[in-house]
């Protein structure tokens, strides 16, 4: 049966299953998880092309026949809104000779025409026609279509796709993280978020999981971002200090959050979460009180979520990130400013603050990215082989909702991420969905 099998990096032999239990322990993970191409290839099949993955937002295709190009894993995707308003995720590939059907980044069209031989498709992926059709025995003879992501669902306009034809619904996948998206939407006086301010695209020479882990790592901000906190006198650093009452929560399903609400409740000042006061944004606050009545105070005090939704959606209060992998050692961070429908006073500030903070030149994210890239170079080194995720394991507790929580600086989120990751990667390829 098995002839000589080359041993890969002292781990499982090529062709034989990777033993994830030997790589992922409760408080440490093996460095090869970040740089082994075989593990990356398996992640594509078991995570990126199986679970629900964030792709874009409905507000990017507001009108019938709008479309915008996206990526899902390594796939070139056209997110379309058909004439009836339904959103589709099409694979940008002609059913004839695999040419790319769409070369524009965005636009409005009910159909796409492949430039190679002129085949045309409706924006649902349906084949409309092909030139010189006698060569195929006439019109409508071909049972072909563009590929599409079989399941597309959205939540508050956040569009997710799953390549698994069946499995858990989006709402099941989101689990407790859905309430965090609710919190974000509730900051709009109309209860709606838009992500229509364009996307920054930040090329990052690091494994995507380093980013997912960092997003709710409350241990690093004081160190990595000390330079900007010091210069601007930002109070954000204190939220992630040893004295902070904020909480890191494992939301299950690989999702986690830094819950900053305990800190904001302490001050009980509306708009403090946004670094301002209600007198600076009076129209917004008035609209919110109109809409939410007695609940408005709490909403305005508690502010926006800081949540990492497995595997690739990070909502960082007023910014949204879409992380997409490129290879074991590279990924792209797409980031934009949250726009709250009906809140023009806030929206301009959110764009300005986002430009300052995120993207390739951001005064926060460029430094995070430098860290990711140095981590990636670090995991190439031969020892100590493992990355440690034990911080706070001895002081974890369970909150009233049954979730594991730790202090603001504990690695609770990372442990939740790895436990879910291991579960997904240990499934064999035939299982669906989750």
């Amino acid at each position, binding site marked *: 049966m098995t002839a000589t099998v080359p041993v890969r990096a002292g781990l499982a032999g090529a062709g034989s299953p990777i033993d994830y239990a030997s790589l992922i322990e409760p408080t440490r993970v093996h460095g090869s998880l970040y740089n082994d191409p075989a593990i990356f290839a398996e992640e594509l099949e078991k995570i990126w092309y199986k679970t629900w993955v964030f792709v874009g937002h409905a507000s990017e295709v507001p009108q019938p026949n709008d479309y915008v190009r996206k990526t899902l894993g390594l796939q070139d995707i056209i997110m379309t809104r058909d004439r009836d308003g339904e959103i589709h995720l099409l694979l940008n590939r002609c059913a004839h000779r695999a040419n790319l059907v769409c070369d524009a*980044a965005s636009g409005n069209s009910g159909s796409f025409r492949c430039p190679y031989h002129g085949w045309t498709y409706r924006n649902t992926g349906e084949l409309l026609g092909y030139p010189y059709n006698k060569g195929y025995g006439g019109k409508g003879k071909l049972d072909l279509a563009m590929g599409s992501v079989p399941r597309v669902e959205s939540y508050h306009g956040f569009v997710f796709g799953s390549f698994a034809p069946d499995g858990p619904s989006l709402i099941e996948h989101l689990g407790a993280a859905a309430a965090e998206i609710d919190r974000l939407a509730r900051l709009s006086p109309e209860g709606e978020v838009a992500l229509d*301010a*364009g*996307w*920054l*695209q*930040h*090329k*990052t*020479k690091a494994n995507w999981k380093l980013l997912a882990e960092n997003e709710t790592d409350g241990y690093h901000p004081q160190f*990595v971002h*000390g*330079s*900007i906190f*010091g*210069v*601007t006198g930002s109070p954000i650093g204190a939220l992630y200090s040893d004295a902070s009452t904020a909480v890191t929560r494992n939301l299950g399903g690989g999702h986690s959050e830094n819950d900053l609400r305990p800190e904001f409740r302490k001050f009980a000042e509306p708009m403090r979460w946004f670094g301002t006061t209600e007198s600076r944004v009076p129209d917004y606050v008035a609209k919110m009180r109109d809409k939410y009545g007695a609940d408005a105070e709490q909403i305005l005090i508690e502010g926006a979520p800081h949540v990492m939704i497995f595997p690739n959606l990070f909502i960082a209060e007023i910014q949204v990130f879409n992380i997409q992998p490129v290879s074991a050692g590279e990924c*792209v961070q797409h*980031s*934009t*400013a949250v726009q709250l429908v009906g809140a023009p006073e806030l*929206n*301009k500030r959110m*764009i*300005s603050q*986002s*430009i*300052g903070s995120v*993207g*390739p*030149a951001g*005064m926060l994210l*460029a*430094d995070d*990215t*430098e*860290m990711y*890239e*140095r981590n990636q*170079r670090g995991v190439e080194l031969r020892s100590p082989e493992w990355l440690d995720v034990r911080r706070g394991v001895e002081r974890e507790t369970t909150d009233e909702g049954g979730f594991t929580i730790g202090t603001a600086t504990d690695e609770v989120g990372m442990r939740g991420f790895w436990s879910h990751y291991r579960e997904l990667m240990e499934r064999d390829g035939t299982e669906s969905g989750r």
Partner: protein
Amino acid sequence: MTTPHTLTTAESVDIRRVEAFLYREARHADENDYDAWEALWTDDAIYWVPACDTDVDPLTRVSIIYDNRNRISTRLQQVRTGKRYAQAPPSNLRRLISNVEILGTCESSGGDTDIEVGANVLVFESRARGNELWGGRITYHLRPDGDDFRLSYKKVVLVDHDKAVATLGFLI
């Protein structure tokens, strides 16, 4: 003879003096001489690197950089801490500025008449992460100031503006 203060037409500007200013600005940026670079800017400065959409209202769409004078100052204060890790250590840099053209004049919001200059740029950046080549089109607004100029506007449209780009930590 006209003095720079009374310049009203682009034709009356000596392109060699314009180029000398652009090369000086480029050298300060290449050598990470933050103080000298910052001193070139006017108080109403705009330093803009658009992202995907290059001709949009930067107040309603995200950009890679859209700094007013205050934010230029914040950006430089951050890097001066020595703990702006995206530039600590700083990138090694050299850039070429070419195809310099005087495009006309334009009125600033404060009523000054600035000279609009276009140029191409190619920056070679070396970092531990790897080397990057950054190409772009720059539009400058230069404000006559005695025998010299000050910089009131610099817009850098990257050739790669519609693609993912690496960390842009240095002054482009």
